[in-house]
């Protein structure tokens, strides 16, 4: 009798957990190489929240659009992990507003990136050989940081090397077609370029860079 009760309890619990599980129906996918429970994803296929999704290695921006058949709400399963962007107390009380056209809202971009980058830059730097600025912001491959300065009458923009949360500024910034420029005091403007949607976001202007001449080494 006791064994029967135990089996019944396990059976009830199992059924209950099945009832609680969310089921999804695939509506769209941008990559057919994604595996769900070891099978290639197909439009119209169903899976539940216990299913294992295996994203193709080395391929970025894979996504599956599915509908939760219990809640009737559509959702996206994405290969890149995202963080919840919660506001700090200071960000609730104050906000930064942009007046330039650079400030256009970019759909899909983590809005905390420009905010964090903006805080990373100081007003003054000196460039002797290579300058490394620690930002702790890892940029996705779609984003690159562009530095712009004026040299004579020309306005020059160049992408900066970024690596593992670090921004590298070296003398290559002042080299045009292999010819080295000899600037002294440069005012830099930093922009974030999103190559996916061809759009710039203003990060910071008026960053003073004193370039120490190479002969002074």
């Amino acid at each position, binding site marked *: 009798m006791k064994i029967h009760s135990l089996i019944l309890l396990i059976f009830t619990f199992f059924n209950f957990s099945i009832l609680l599980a969310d089921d999804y*129906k695939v*509506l*769209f996918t941008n990559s057919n190489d994604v595996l769900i429970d070891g099978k290639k994803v197909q*439009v*119209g296929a169903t899976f539940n929240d216990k299913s294992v*999704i295996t994203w193709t290695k080395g391929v970025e921006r894979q996504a599956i*659009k599915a*509908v939760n058949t219990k*809640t*009737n*709400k*559509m*959702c*996206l*399963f*994405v*290969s*890149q*992990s*995202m*963080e*919840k962007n919660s*506001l700090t*107390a200071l960000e*609730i*009380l104050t906000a930064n507003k942009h007046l330039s056209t650079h400030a256009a809202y970019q*759909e899909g971009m983590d809005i905390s990136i420009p905010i964090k980058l903006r805080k990373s830059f100081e007003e003054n730097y000196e460039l002797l050989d290579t300058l490394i600025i620690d930002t702790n912001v890892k940029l996705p491959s779609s984003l690159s940081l562009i530095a712009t300065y004026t040299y004579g009458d020309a306005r020059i923009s160049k992408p900066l090397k970024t690596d593992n949360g670090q921004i590298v500024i070296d003398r290559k910034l002042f080299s045009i077609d292999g010819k080295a420029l000899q600037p002294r005091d440069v005012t830099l403007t930093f922009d974030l370029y999103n190559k996916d949607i061809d759009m710039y976001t203003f990060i910071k202007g008026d960053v003073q860079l004193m370039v120490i001449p190479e002969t002074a080494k």
Partner: protein
Amino acid sequence: MTKFTFLLSLRRHFTIKLCGAILLSIGIIAASYFIGNSDIPMPDEMKVLRTFDRFMKFSGQYEDNLPDSILLVNVCYDKQLVDYSVHDIPVGQFVITDREKLLQFLTAAYEADNYRYIMMDVFFEHNIESPQDSALFATIRKMNRIVIANHVDSHLSDTLLKKKSAYADYTVSWKVTKFAHFQFLREGNEPTMPLRIYEDLAGKTIKKWGPFYFSDGRLCKNAITLNLPIRVEDDYSLETPNILEKRYEFLGADILAHDSIYPISMQLEDKIVIIGDFMTDVHDTYLGPQPGSLICINAYHALQQGDHYFHWGWAIVQFIIYFIIGYFLMSRLTFARMMPNIFLRMLFFIFSVPSILLVVALIAYVTTGYVYNMYIPTFLYWLYQFIYNTYRKAKMNAK
């Protein structure tokens, strides 16, 4: 004898102040009701809402909120180009919401007829025509539980659509240029979209009787400072690091494109469907830019919650507060002066009339969500003091 005369004068003064404070309090409550019913926003409404919203956010109480009963359909990416003329002279082309897709969607909705309501915040303006118009307008006319947008100063493309339309407008002033105040019955006592939904779903309406408004046999307001509890901050809400839940669905890319796998009838079942452009049709509110369609659904939500009813309980609380302030004002007393302790006196020194009203308004908002007008009482107290001081000066000059 002198003592008796003094007591008599004291009593007379007390009675005058008492009656004055009572009259002033009733006057403020009445003025707040009548002025508040107009379409014109008061200067403090936006500020109060913004202050309270910051307070709620700061205390971690507010988040993105969209009830399951609402389906938001975004038409921002469903556009078509149509020929456009000015004074009957062709000037080029104009971008409008794709009427072919609207027709496709409404036809499916009409056939399913399982939705709770459809609020289509799309305006079919006179002089802008598309080849799908006759079929689309015929479908709208035969549908039940649908309302489309109309505007006070514009004309609909088809006059037969008038029956299915309601106003989607609000007023701003030279002083208040952002949205904070919603009026339910507008020009000529015509209903707005939220009121029309309320009429159709709840079977109740707002009726004017002289300067008063009634709903369901109860005294109510025709306009309120609109709180926006239904809000969509982002396109998606992050459920887990890899799962994003859509906050609204795109008409073409989500609803129509997947009809064969996920039928429209399933998507609409028992939903209040809000069709609008959530990207470009945005208005400045205390939360920042918010889609016009969401403002309308929040106004409907306010009606559903009974926020438009005149709250007698709060009116009594307000009366007591106004009476105390009025009596102090007439007696030329301050809270600080009454305090025996110097520290308490310093503390009460900061308690000006607007700050007391702000505290009361904050308590009302946190406990009941009721947004209470501070501008009218503050203005009337100031007006009383101004008249009284002018009268005293004139009297002293005469002496």
